[in-house]
């Protein structure tokens, strides 16, 4: 009797599964482009892709995370049409075609109930290098500072290193989380934690510190008063063509750029307004 099941499996279920697999495979490859890379750019790319698809019936844009380096690698090996990067291209990567689609500010975040409102850039550096270890020294409660940083190789970490730390090293005692969201989660849960994330991803549970008296707002970024800013790139293997080009054109359009600045990014169309 048991043999009957095995027979049925090979006669019916196996071919059906095979057919299903093949048909699903065909559907995926039918149309559309893949955008892969930085987890910082991902939520914005998803938003843009949704907007783009609502205008262009029948187009499909698949957005995946994975990290800046993975995205760039994917473009190079033609696994993705567009790579997202939250850092500038390095070394051999420079042979790829990169377009800045927007600029993003990095905010230094603390728990919403932390009494500290702002720090100078030097103080931020001293906190993250482990020279200042208690909130008391910064006008807060008497409690050790819990540092939260991104992992080695992350675009956000690289930008933070360049813009804030300079030659100094981030303390090895810092907790390491592998996404903006995870850092936000830890900081939101711990009144003595401090971390850094994309400005666009701030929510009501965390508070962005003023840096040297300047609040990280779109206005201050556009007027170049807030300096912790880095580019968001789309990376292509050669000049973009077809669907990829049409998506890029959409992303660079005033409409899409307005959408991005509404989400907290800095549009590339914005001009520095005096002051």
């Amino acid at each position: 009797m048991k043999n009957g099941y095995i027979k049925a499996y090979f006669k019916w279920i196996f071919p059906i599964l095979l057919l299903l697999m093949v048909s699903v495979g065909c559907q995926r490859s039918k149309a559309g482009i893949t955008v892969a890379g930085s987890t910082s750019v991902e939520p914005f790319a998803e938003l843009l892709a949704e907007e783009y698809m609502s205008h262009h019936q029948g187009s499909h844009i698949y957005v995946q995370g994975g990290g800046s380096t993975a995205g760039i690698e994917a473009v190079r090996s033609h696994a993705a049409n567009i790579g997202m990067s939250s850092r500038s291209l390095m070394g051999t990567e420079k042979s790829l075609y990169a377009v800045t689609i927007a600029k993003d500010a990095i905010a230094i975040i603390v728990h919403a109930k932390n009494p500290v409102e702002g720090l100078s850039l030097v103080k931020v550096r001293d906190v993250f290098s482990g020279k200042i270890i208690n909130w008391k020294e910064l006008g807060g409660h008497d409690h050790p500072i819990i540092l939260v940083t991104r992992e080695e190789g992350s675009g956000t970490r690289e930008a933070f290193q360049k813009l804030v730390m300079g030659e100094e090293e981030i303390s090895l005692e810092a907790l390491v989380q592998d996404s903006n969201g995870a850092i936000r989660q830890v900081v939101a849960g711990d009144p003595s934690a401090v971390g850094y994330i994309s400005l666009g991803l701030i929510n009501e549970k965390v508070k962005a510190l003023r840096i040297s008296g300047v609040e990280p707002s779109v206005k201050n970024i556009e007027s170049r008063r807030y300096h912790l800013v880095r580019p968001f790139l789309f990376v292509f293997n050669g000049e973009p063509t077809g669907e990829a080009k049409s998506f890029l054109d959409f992303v660079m359009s005033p409409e899409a750029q307005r959408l991005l600045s509404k989400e907290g990014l800095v549009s590339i169309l914005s001009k520095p307004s005096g002051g």
Partner: protein
Amino acid sequence: MKLEIKEKIIEKIFLLIALSSILILGLITFFIFEEGFPLILKLGPKAFLFGEKWIPSKDLFGIFPMIVGSFWVTLGALFLGIPLGLACTIFLSELIPPSLGTLLRPAIQLLAAIPSVIYGFWGLIVLVPLIRIYLGGPGLSILTGSLVLSFMILPTIITISEDSLKALPPSYKAGALALGATHWQTIWRVLIPAARSGIVASIILGMGRAIGETMAMIMILGNAVQMPNSILDSARTLTTNIGIEMGYASGDHRQALFATGIVLFFIIMALNILAIFLSRRRVD
């Protein structure tokens, strides 16, 4: 005659399918070594294994803090998990009223079916704040990781050691009881020592699971690359080092992660061989 040929062909096809699973293992091994080994040679095994600084942006690849981290987290998990697991096993196999067994056994097996990301999430939301508030530190710590891991290795320890207790000849128990030993004396002095090899094997397999766990540990351990000084400090294990940095790594950094995999590979291999060896040495 024709039937015989047909059978031979089917036999060969099955052999091929069985071999393919070994082939996959071989391929994985080959690629890990191919990617990671050059870097170990370049740095020197000593600098790689016992280096205390992991700063890939400065070409410093020392995984000693991770080895220490893995060691402490696993030890903590065993410290909490072994007494709990053994108590559970004894209760399940000897003391339980039959009606409760039908409920408890599936429940323990369900513990193994929960995805590790759920354990991680639960630890992060429930245990981390408790430990931060009542014991201090960041909450994301070795203690929290060990606690969660000890739950995760329970099903492994319980099911395998219960099997080894069940496999004992009934004459052991009958003989001990006939000689006037109480039920508890029989369990403690006769059954447990007799099933010792199976119980030790279950612990070693649990240890392998603890060392290999990645997702939950990324969420709970805090992943700081430091030599931990207390169980309330954050730590990074070998697996989380790979998991957390894979996405962005390139060049030497990427190779260093594969090399971390080689170290893990040897640890897990050694544990599994030990477990097989111990469980083969049956009671005489």
